[in-house]
């Protein structure tokens, strides 16, 4: 579903974000992308959404070589991807409902279905009561969840999330990961960029580690037996 072939991304002669990155994520996989700040995670995600083009190499998503894709087809390609941005990218002048309704308008969903679809997406992130709030009236965590609801509203083929749990407390983090897991069960391929080591280790999912723009590790995480509630109350062995 997502294939990187020897991808290098240079911004200038002195700044290279990715060096000869090659990896493959198959349809229906749930993969974590991790690495320290500045490792190249966000650049890699931008390449998937074709916000930028690689300096070298090829990126293929859902069978489409992004370098060869016509510009007129880019919007339709992006509609297949549910992207959760690190800075949420919610439209501040629009209410939560309008933010979601706008996506549905872009997708050509009849207006009479907007309320039902938006309500359903917000219910999944437990924010259905915030339908008429404006983004700036919400906490960072709530905005994060609205961004997730927006990304999932269309059951996209691919879900790409950049630090989607960065602003959430541990309980909400588990809840959000569960939402992504359910989307994955429904058939979406999921790629989550995060530096939350605990989240990754408990997931039991495949992890790609980036360091200074290079893939340094690719493995399946082994779940640790240290759920937070149990460790707090000393239950279990």
């Amino acid at each position, binding site marked *: 579903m997502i294939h990187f072939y020897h991808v290098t991304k240079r911004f200038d002669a002195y700044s290279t974000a990715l060096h000869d990155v090659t990896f493959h994520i198959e349809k229906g996989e749930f993969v974590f992308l991790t690495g320290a700040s500045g490792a190249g995670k966000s650049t890699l995600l931008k390449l998937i959404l074709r916000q930028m083009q690689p300096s070298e190499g090829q990126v293929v998503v859902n069978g489409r070589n992004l370098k060869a894709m016509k510009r007129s087809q880019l919007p339709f390609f992006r509609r297949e991807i549910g992207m959760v941005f690190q800075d949420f990218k919610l439209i501040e002048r629009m209410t939560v409902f309008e933010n979601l309704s706008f996506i549905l*308008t872009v997708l050509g*969903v009849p207006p009479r279905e907007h309320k039902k679809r938006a309500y359903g997406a917000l219910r999944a992130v437990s924010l259905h009561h915030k339908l008429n709030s404006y983004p700036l009236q919400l906490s960072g965590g709530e905005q994060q969840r609205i961004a997730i609801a927006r990304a999932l509203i269309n059951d996209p083929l691919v879900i790409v999330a950049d630090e989607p749990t960065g602003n959430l407390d541990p309980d909400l983090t588990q809840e959000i990961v569960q939402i992504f897991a359910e989307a994955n069960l429904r058939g979406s391929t999921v790629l989550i960029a995060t530096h939350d080591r605990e989240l990754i280790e408990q997931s039991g999912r495949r992890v790609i580690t980036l360091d200074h723009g290079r893939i340094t590790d690719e493995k399946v995480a082994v779940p640790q037996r240290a759920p937070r509630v149990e460790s707090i109350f000393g239950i279990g062995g």
Partner: protein
Amino acid sequence: MPLPDESLPKNTVSYFFLEAMRRMWVSKRTSFVAIAMIAISLFIVGAFLLVAENLGRAVAHAGGTSRVNIYLNSDATPQQIAAVDSWLAAHHDFAGRKFVSKEAALARFREYFANLSGVVGQLDENPFPASFECEVAPGVAQSPAFASQAAELRAIAGVEEVQFDWEWVEKLKKLINLVNLAGLIAGGLLAIAAAFTIANVIRLTMLLYREEIDIMRLVGATERMIRGPFLIEGILQGLLGAAVAVALLAAAFLAGRHFLAPRNSLLWGFLFNGFLPWQKLAALLAGGMLAGYLGSWMSVRESGEET
């Protein structure tokens, strides 16, 4: 699976209009400037069109027949007048004649120029000459044979002057062409300036919504969907400007007819004979929309950077 070509979802037209109106409301001041520019431009174009239209009506009114006025000397004797009348009666082309006495000419002036009748009243004697008015078919009136007959007429004792009204009709036609040309040039230049004003207004609006436009691109909105509201905004500004221009023109016309054109005044009467026909009003509205569209198109064309 192939991706579809760029097309618009069915419910986007209403989205375009609602967004365009909302953005105009949010940027009221800049929108006002754009609308005012279009209104001023089209008011000027409309004013020229209106003058030309009414001059054209006057020409059309006079175009069916040609009139020859034979003015007599102020001291012409009854015998001389009778001789002229006999000459006219004997010549077939002049046969449809009408005698206008000095008194009748004065009365006519007082009727046509009610405002100036007092001035004439202060004079010691009636300044208007007696005359014969002959209705002549236009084809005959401009023939060489007719010209020689007119020369013969001029030579008769008691005849002061022989005037042909097609001469001023021709002059009026040239004036109409000039008015139309001046209107088109002045209006065209102003409309171009107005289109650039709209372009700048739309450019400012796009800057205001730059972040939002980036988000729209990232979530899969097509360029048509992003640009649509801006194009509609320009068209609406143009239409509103044109509507304001037409309203101002109608108000100016009605005020002019009320205050400047007392009933039967020949001087103003023909300038306020009637308002613009609906075709020209529609053209003004369409011109406003076109200027608005071109202005917004200039701006959105520049905004094609990929996100």
